[in-house]
């Protein structure tokens, strides 16, 4: 899965360069994020703005990353479009993840 990453302060930002997040990319995504977490990046903003389709495999991969982050870290979602947001609501993942309209808002919230 093609991802763009950067760090702002203590916050690690991941942006997907794929428009679909499904079974084909979920395994790679999970492995790559696990590597970043293992490198010590435990406060993560996942900017899903470029994604216009996500299926249960994609959602499962995100949940798996959250578990990997553990209680001492946090993984939040930013810039979900209507379709992606509806999938979070369908699975009730919106009650587990903090979801922000913009990446900036997410970074600020994590920085405070």
């Amino acid at each position, binding site marked *: 899965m093609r991802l763009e990453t950067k760090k702002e302060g203590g916050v690690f930002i991941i942006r997907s360069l794929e428009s679909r997040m499904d079974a084909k990319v979920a395994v790679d995504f999970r492995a790559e994020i696990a590597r970043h977490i293992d490198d010590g990046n435990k406060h993560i903003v996942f900017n899903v703005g470029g994604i216009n389709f996500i299926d249960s495999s994609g959602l499962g991969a995100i*949940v798996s990353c959250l578990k990997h982050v553990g209680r001492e870290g946090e993984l939040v979602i930013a810039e979900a479009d209507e*379709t992606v947001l509806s999938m979070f*609501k369908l*699975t*009730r993942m919106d*009650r587990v993840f903090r979801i922000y309209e913009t990446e900036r808002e997410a970074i600020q919230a994590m920085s405070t």
Partner: protein
Amino acid sequence: MYTHRGYPDFSKGRLHSRYDFISITLAEVWMNTKAVMPQSPPPTRHAGAIIRHLKYSLGASPKKALPQSLYQATALAVRNHLIDKMMETEDRYTQRKAKRVYYLSLEFLMGRSLGNNLHNLGLFDAFSETLTDMGADLEELREQEHDAALGNGGLGRLAACFLDSMATLGLPGYGYGINYEFGLFKQEIDNGYQKEKPDNWLVDGTPWLIHHPEAACIIPVYGHIQHAEDRDGHYNPMWMDWKTLIGVPHDMPIAGYGGKTVNTLRLYAARSSDDFDMDIFNTGDYLKAVEQKMTSETVSKVLYPSDAMESGRELRLIQEYFFVACAIRDIVARYKRSHTNFDAFADQVAIQLNDTHPALAVAELMRLLVDEHALEWDQAWQTTCATFAYTNHTLLPEALEKWPVSLMEHVLPRHMQIIFEINHRFLADVQSRWPGDTQRPATMSIIEEGHPKQVRMAHLAIVGSHSVNGVAALHSELVKKDLLPDFFALYPDRFSNKTNGVTPRRWLLKANPGLAKLIDSQLKRPWVTDITNLTDLVPLSRNPDFQKTFKAIKQANKKRLSKIIWDTTRIVVSPDSLFTIHAKRIHEYKRQLLCLLHIIHQYLALVEDGIPPKIPRTYIFAGKAAPGYDAAKRIIKLINSVGDTINNDPRVGNHIKVVFIPDYRVSLAEKIIPAADLSVQISTAGKEASGTGNMKFALNGALTIGTLDGANIEIMEEVGQENIFIFGLTAEEVHEINVSRTYRPWEIAENTPTIRRLLDAIGSGRFSPDDPSRFIPVCETLLSEYDPYLHLADLRGYIAAQEKAEACYADPVRWTEKAILNVAHMGKFSSDRTIREYAEEIWHAAPCL
């Protein structure tokens, strides 16, 4: 050249030229009457539209257009009118903030649309003239249309009639269902046996469905529940690992009579989430990519050909869930376009569940409100119950849907959780209403304990609705008294009756144009939208001139049917004989067998006792048997075998004919029903919920021979006991016999030589000389004390009623008077009346004109 019994040789020249006498008779009637139709635009405009569609929509040359292309082009021209009106209608509803009514049904038996749409838009005559000027014939083009057979029988046809009535009344009513690629199978008769062929009704495409890929929705299915916590540490079940189905809507415009309102029937087709997955293709696994697509699309591939429950069939469960999930998502989205919260949802939305097939909608709306829109459970439940209403259609235990809990958990894990929660709270109510009662919680529970555990869909529908209705007075009483007495005790205010009805637009105006024109010519008050005005025919019932014309129309309809019988069965029947018609699905409870026993009785009386019927008789059967229903398929074989014997016995001559017309469907019913003299409605009392065929036949001037079952009782009340031939056990007597176990059919046979004789004839192979034992199972059923349909108990009464009918038919003046009075008193049985009752008493919705 092949000829049959001296009938004209149809192999030369055009068949219909031999039937000139039919069209002449109808033409004479029409010439003497005046059409009352809404004003329509001049024909030239329609010709332009048809030609444009021929060229630019179909790429066909107007000079060389085949009938199918011309039909398509004509339909597309009509569709333009429909779309304009449909958009106007939707705007009107939105501007007026009208309450919407949604009719969820797994079946919509629409039949053909061209003629109906033309009538309802007031364009019939204009298009007919236009096509004549173009050298074509509208009637011939209408024959090009494939029936939309998206239903099995009464339940699906009722849904179609309701859509017509909602549009005619100006009610904001939407139908939701499945766009089956294959409708109900086509029936062929091979050596007397039913053979099923796929009904590829979309093979030529259909102009009536408007495809809306842009409105496709994602439907999750399968997966598992991950028991997690939310950010605040509360239990948060997450539905993970589901597969994706895509629901693509196809809209069929539904024109109300007069053309002011055009509503929508939205049918969903299932599509794969990846139409063509290039990644999988590029890795070389092309077949895997296509297989997944095919599996997803199977969901809307075929209509299940049975009205009984299909429990255990995973695909059927997914079908039921798929269409309600699509529908609820669409309904909520429409509501959300003008509302920010759900406080007014039940004031703006009414959803009717046509039987239990859409009952999962209760759980789906709850899931949507609680999971996706974060409503508290209590508010969501209050909203859900205030929104839904449920129609019960059957008292037959085998037709009450139940689904194994294990299957439901596998296919719909989150819904199963929600159903458990609904049941938990419901049982708490039951316990507080009847403290200490251990029996009621078990019998009323949504979950039936046992092996396997099952979800009772009717209980889910009742608990999740504010209204439960039966479909005829007797049926509604039996629902309260026998089927669901505990629920009636708990929720007495929820139960009501809404006697079914039929649309007079399709079943009189369109199906019987001769009679419609005659009525037009005599009635000062409009009847097409208010058939209670048909009572104005009462004073004419003895008028000799009126009787003569009325009879001529019936005769013309019988001649038309005679030709269809010849074309499809190569059997010659006389239009002068008494046409006795038993047309409906083949099912033991509908008792085609009882009808057949009387025919055999009459045959044996003729050939063995030398007693012919008082008048020539033609017995006409039509109907399909569910492919897996062996007893019903055996009945079809027996009908054809008895027919072969009787029709080919030279001693019988023209006294008796027996025919089975294959492939009963809406368009065929429109030709059969207007030709009936005697309508056979002889189900075992207490088994037929309502019936609507009984209403269609009577509306077209047939007299009914029937039991006191379903809506027959109300027909009798309307037309008067003297104008209907009623016989047989009442529902109460049937119940009594079943409880006391006093049915002794062999004693009836032993004590009645004529009955013993006809059973011997069946059992000894008289109608199956090639295999004398073939119909022994029929005799065994008839002589079994466990025959739940009590055939022999009603046989003597039925034979007597037939004799009475025969004697009456021998007096044409008396018969015709009764037939006219039947038409005149059908006012109650318009689906407009039924829908008005639903709207006022259940939906609390008003017309928006």
